[in-house]
C-alpha cells in the first residue's frame, strides 16, 4: 500500500542554526540504516525527510529499521502521488479501502494541509470534497471531526503525501550531532544500555572491550561483537576496540593484594580507555555502572576508580535499579545476547572478598609496586579493531 515514509524530526526544532547540519546527519543515519534495501531514496521536502521505496513490500521493514534512529519523533507510512486533485481523491479512497479491511472504522476525518498555495482548493474545501467522496464510496462510515476512528492526512507540498498513521519513535538527537564518546562494553547487561542512552542524546559511540584470553573464550568476543551489532541498529557504525588484559591481571596477582584486584584492574581499564579516547578524538567515557550494584560500584570504589584519570565518565545508569536496566535491555534487544553464558566464564581474577571501601592512598601504594606505564603499553599492543 505505502510507497513512502514521512519522517518527522524531534528536538531538532530547538537547535536553531544547527538545524541544517543535524538534518544532514539524520539523513546520513537513515541511509546507513537502510543500506541493505534496493531502490530506496531519501530526500527532504519542506520540513520533513521522506524515505521512498520502489518495493512497497519492504515498507514494513524500512519503518522497523528507521524507527530505531535517534532524532526522529514519528514516522508516517504514506502514499506519494502527484498533486492532481482527482488522483489524490482516487488514492485516498484506495487507502481508505485498505484501512477499513484492516480495522473496524465507523467514523473518520479528512485533514488537509497545503504548503503549496498554488493548489486550486483551500485546505478546508479540499477536506470536505475528499470526505464527501469517501461517504459516497463507503456507506457504513460517518464523519466525526472530534474523535474519529481514523484521520486521513493529506499533505500537499512539492508532491502530495497521504497517510493515516503516526508511529511514535524514540526521539533523542541524531547520533553524531553531539560529539564522540568511548563506551566500556563488557558483554553484560548494563553497558549496552548505557551506550544506548548516551547515543540517544546525539553522541557517536565507539566501544572498548577487555578480555583475558585464554582465560576467557573466543566466544565471549563473538558475544561482544553481537552486542555491538545490536547497538549499531540505534547508534550507527561503532568501532570496537578489543584489548587483552591478561598481563595486567598477572601483574596484579603477583604483586598486589587479592581483595584489591578489581579496583586496580578497573583503574587500569580507565587509563587505557582514556588513552584510546584521546588518541581518537573522543571527549568522554561511558560506563554501565549503577550505584551499589557490585563491590566496584560503591560510592567509595567509584571515586577511587575515577581518580585514575582526568576524562569525564558518563554513567547514565547510575540511579537505575537492575530491573529498570533489564527492562531497557529487553526493549532495545540486547538482553538475550547479554545473558549468554560466555562472559566471566572464568572467575579466576575475581577476588573472593573484594574491597567495598577502598582507600585511595592504599590503592596508590599497591599501584606503585607495578610499572603502570609499561603494563599499559604492553596490553595496548594486543589491540584489535573491529
Amino acid at each position, binding site marked *: 500500500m505505502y510507497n513512502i515514509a514521512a519522517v518527522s524530526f524531534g528536538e531538532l526544532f530547538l537547535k536553531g542554526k544547527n538545524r541544517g547540519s543535524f538534518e544532514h546527519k539524520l539523513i546520513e543515519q537513515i541511509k546507513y540504516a537502510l543500506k541493505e534495501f534496493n531502490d530506496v531514496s531519501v530526500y527532504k521536502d519542506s520540513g520533513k525527510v521522506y524515505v521512498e521505496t520502489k518495493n512497497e513490500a519492504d515498507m514494513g521493514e524500512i519503518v522497523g529499521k528507521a524507527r530505531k534512529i535517534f532524532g526522529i519523533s514519528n514516522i508516517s507510512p504514506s502514499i506519494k502521488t502527484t498533486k492532481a486533485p482527482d488522483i489524490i481523491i482516487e488514492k485516498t479512497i484506495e487507502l481508505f479501502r485498505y484501512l477499513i479491511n484492516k480495522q473496524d472504522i465507523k467514523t473518520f476525518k479528512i485533514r488537509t494541509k497545503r504548503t503549496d498555495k498554488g493548489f486550486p482548493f483551500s485546505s478546508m474545501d479540499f477536506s470536505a470534497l475528499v470526505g464527501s467522496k469517501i461517504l459516497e464510496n463507503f456507506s457504513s462510515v460517518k464523519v466525526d471531526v472530534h474523535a474519529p476512528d481514523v484521520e486521513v492526512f493529506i499533505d500537499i507540498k512539492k508532491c502530495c503525501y497521504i497517510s493515516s498513521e503516526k508511529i511514535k519513535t524514540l526521539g533523542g538527537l541524531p547520533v553524531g550531532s553531539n560529539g564522540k564518546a568511548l563506551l566500556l562494553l563488557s558483554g553484560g547487561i548494563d553497558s549496552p544500555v548505557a551506550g544506548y542512552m548516551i547515543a540517544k542524546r546525539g553522541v557517536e559511540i565507539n566501544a572498548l572491550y577487555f578480555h583475558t*584470553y*585464554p*582465560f*576467557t*573464550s*573466543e566466544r565471549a568476543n563473538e558475544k561482544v561483537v553481537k552486542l555491538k551489532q545490536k547497538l549499531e541498529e540505534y547508534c550507527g557504525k561503532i568501532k570496537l576496540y578489543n584489548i587483552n588484559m591478561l598481563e595486567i*591481571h*598477572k601483574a596484579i*596477582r603477583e604483586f598486589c593484594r*587479592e581483595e584489591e584486584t578489581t579496583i586496580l584492574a578497573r583503574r587500569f581499564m580507565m587509563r587505557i580507555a582514556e588513552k584510546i579516547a584521546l588518541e581518537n578524538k573522543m571527549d568522554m567515557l561511558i560506563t554501565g555502572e549503577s550505584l551499589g550494584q557490585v563491590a566496584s560500584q560503591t560510592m567509595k570504589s567509584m571515586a577511587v576508580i575515577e581518580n585514575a584519570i582526568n576524562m569525564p565518565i558518563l554513567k547514565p545508569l547510575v540511579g537505575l535499579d537492575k530491573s529498570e536496566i533489564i527492562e531497557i535491555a529487553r526493549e532495545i534487544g540486547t538482553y538475550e545476547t547479554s545473558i549468554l*553464558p560466555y562472559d566471566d*566464564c*572464568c572467575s*579466576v581474577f575475581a577476588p*573472593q572478598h573484594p574491597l567495598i571501601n577502598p582507600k585511595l592512598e592504599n590503592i596508590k601504594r599497591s599501584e606503585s609496586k607495578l610499572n603502570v606505564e609499561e603494563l599499559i603499553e604492553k596490553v595496548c599492543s594486543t589491540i584489535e579493531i573491529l
Partner: protein
Amino acid sequence: MQVYLDNSATTKVRDEVLKEIIDANENFYGNPSSLHRMGLVVEKKIDEARKTSAKLIGAKPEETYFTGGGTESNNIAIFGHLTNLNKHNSVITTKIEHPSVYNVFKHIEDKCQVKYLDTDENGRINTQELYDMVDENTLLVSIIHVNNEIGTVQQLNEIASTIKRKNENARLHVDAVQSYGKIKIDVHKVPVDTLTFSSHKIHGPKGVGGLYIRSGLKIAPLIYGGGQESGIRSGTENTTGIIGFGKACELVYDSFNEETNKLYSLKDTYVKKLEEEIEDIKINSPADGAPHIINVSFKNVPGEVLVHYLEDKDIYVSTGSACSSKSRDNRILDAINLGKEYREGTIRISLGHFNNLEEVEYVIENIKQSVKDIRSITKRG
C-alpha cells in the same frame, strides 16, 4: 603443528571416504526409491554400506538400519521399545549415559518408573545392583558401552546375562557410539536387542547413524512417511553420507587390530608422560578403558582455560563431552565421585586415526607449560 585430540566429539573424514562422497554426489545422486536404473545403482551402494557397517558388529545386513545419527538411533530404539508404557512398568539405565539416552529417560519419568544405576569410581556399573533392580515389570535396560567422557567399557556379556536371568523378556539397548569400530562387538554372541552406532566418530561424514535391531524384534518408528529403511526411519536416505560411512567402516574393518593397537599404545604413552611430567594430576579413565579416551584432571587448573591455552598452540582437546561441555556441573564426574579440587580441571584427550606418536612430545610439552602458567595465576595467597 596442528593436533586434533577431540575425536570423541567428532572426527576428520578420511580421504578415501571423502572421495567416495564426492563420487556419489557427482555420479550416484539418484533416489534409491526410484524405479529406474539410477535409483537401483544407489540402492545397491547402500546395500553394500549396510553390509560393511553390519559386519563391524557381527550383525546381518537386514538387521541394520541407517538413521540420521547416534541421537536419532537412541531415540528410535528407546521409544520404539516402549510403546505402551504404564506406571507399573520400569526401565533402567545408568547415571553416565550420553544425553541422547539420559534425557530420553528423564523425559519419560512421569510415564513409568525410571531407575538409574550408580557406578564405581572407574565408571563401571555393578551387576549385582543391576540384578536387584530388574524385576518382572522391567521393559528395558539401556547401557552405554563405552562412556564418552572417561572411556569406561561396560561388560556387555555379563550385563546381558544378568538381565535375562532375572527377566528374559526385558530388552537391552546398547549405545555403542564410542565403542563402534574400537572394541570388538558381536551382537550374536551377546543377547543385545538394539544397538546404536554412528558414522562421524569413525572418520565418516556427520548426519549418518545406524541402529541394529535383532531380527524378529518389533520396533515402532518415530517418524512416518515413505517407509524407507523398512519403515524404521522414513525419509529419503542420506545416500551420499551412507556411502561415505560404508567406506569408513570398510577402512576400520580392514585394519581393526592394527588401528586399535596403535590407539592403545598412543593412549598408554600419553598417560605415562602425563603422570611423569606433571604433578598433581589424576587420570580418570580406567586402565582397561577404551583405546581412544584419556580423561585427566589437573589440580587448580580450570579445564576451560587449559582448553583455550592449548587451542592457542593449535592443540584441540575438550573439557568433557562436547554436547555437555557447556553445562557447568558434570553428571559423569559426579558419578565417579571425583574430588572437588580436581573436578574443574578436567579435560578429555580423545584419539583417532590421524594421531601419531610424533605429536605426543609437542602436546605434553604444551600441556606442561600451560598448566604451569595457569597454576602460577590461580594459586591464591
